[in-house]
């Protein structure tokens, strides 16, 4: 942590992503490094995101309006 910075706040939402303050670089297990320059980054922890490691709200409960045939 740079000396001129207060501790970075991390919020574990519990029902969704982990929120990180400030731009971040994320190192992934496959060696890739991805960057988010957002003021706040939502990091996927459920593993369902199609934009992993960033949250795309795929953790939400999904319901079908009516039992419908798959086509």
């Amino acid at each position, binding site marked *: 942590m740079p000396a001129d910075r207060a501790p970075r706040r991390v919020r574990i939402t519990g029902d*969704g992503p982990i929120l990180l303050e400030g731009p971040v670089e994320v190192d992934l297990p496959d060696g890739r490094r991805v960057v988010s*320059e*957002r*003021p706040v980054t939502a990091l996927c922890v459920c593993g369902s995101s199609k934009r992993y490691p*960033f*949250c*795309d*709200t795929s953790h*939400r*409960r999904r319901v079908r309006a009516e039992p419908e045939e798959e086509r």
Partner: protein
Amino acid sequence: MTTTSAAVRTSGPALPQARGPLSAAVLHALRGGGADAAALRGDVAAADPFGDDLQLALCACYELHYRGFAGVADDLEWDPDLLALRRDLERVFLAALRAAVAGGDDLAGEIDALLVEHVDAPGVSAHLRKHGELWQFREYIALRSIYHLKEADPQAWVIPRLEGEAKAALVTVEHDEYGAGRGDRMHAQLFADMMRELGLSDDYGHYLDVAPAAVLAEVNLMSLCGLHRSLRGALVGQFAVVELTSSPGSDRLVRAAKRLRCGPATEGFYAEHVEADAVHEQVVRHGIIAPLVAADPAMAADVVFGMQATAVLDERLSEHLLASWAAGRSALLRPLADGRAVPPV
């Protein structure tokens, strides 16, 4: 007239065409002819609160607080006669919204309902993803430009009306909407880039004359709640609905844009909103709403009203778009005639 400065916009959007007595009266006032709210009381009382005339009249009043119109004096923004007329129009609109919503103060219940993803539910983005045609997608973008070319502006008015953590969190989201310090990354700018890619005009206000009342009403609700401190809770509710529902809808529009081969700016605009609004959802819920209601529990009912009113207007717009397209008809007041993908004749 109380105008003290001769400043008149020479550029900017042209005044729209009137759609009835109320909008004609507002446009007459914007041209410098003065407004007489008392003389219009009968027309106001007879107006359809969600109809074209009243919604365009309101929209034209509100535009004075944004960019104004070419040929219109800047100072008309605070003309007391025009403000009196605007107040009468707002009362009709607000009363109709209050009558159309269920009300209550079950904020947690309202939020939870928005966080459930209804697979295969009908809706504009679901239609565009699966079956939408390019001319329909272009119409959707032309109509959404009424808001997106001033994206985040109506919500900026609520900043001085909030305190502490709720204010800081709202500014965090707005900062992101405004490109986090980079003008070329502003969401309104990304929307303009998409419009040009789709062969649409990105001139501010270009499609106002072809935007039906259902489109104007959504933006008017934002302006109404943004400009009235008494409706700050409702503004937060409106903002919450957009930020909580945008990610899945934007993902469907990314797929629509890919299927229709719209191009990188179009895919990029909606892809940006999938990720950005997944963050914004969390900030709105935990950073804005939670501290706002903790500090003033009476705010819950106002936030709920804003959420429900937004849903009512969104439903009206969806019905209009889907019914028009299902009939093979343009959803605009007049079809686009720009030589690109257009509805069948």
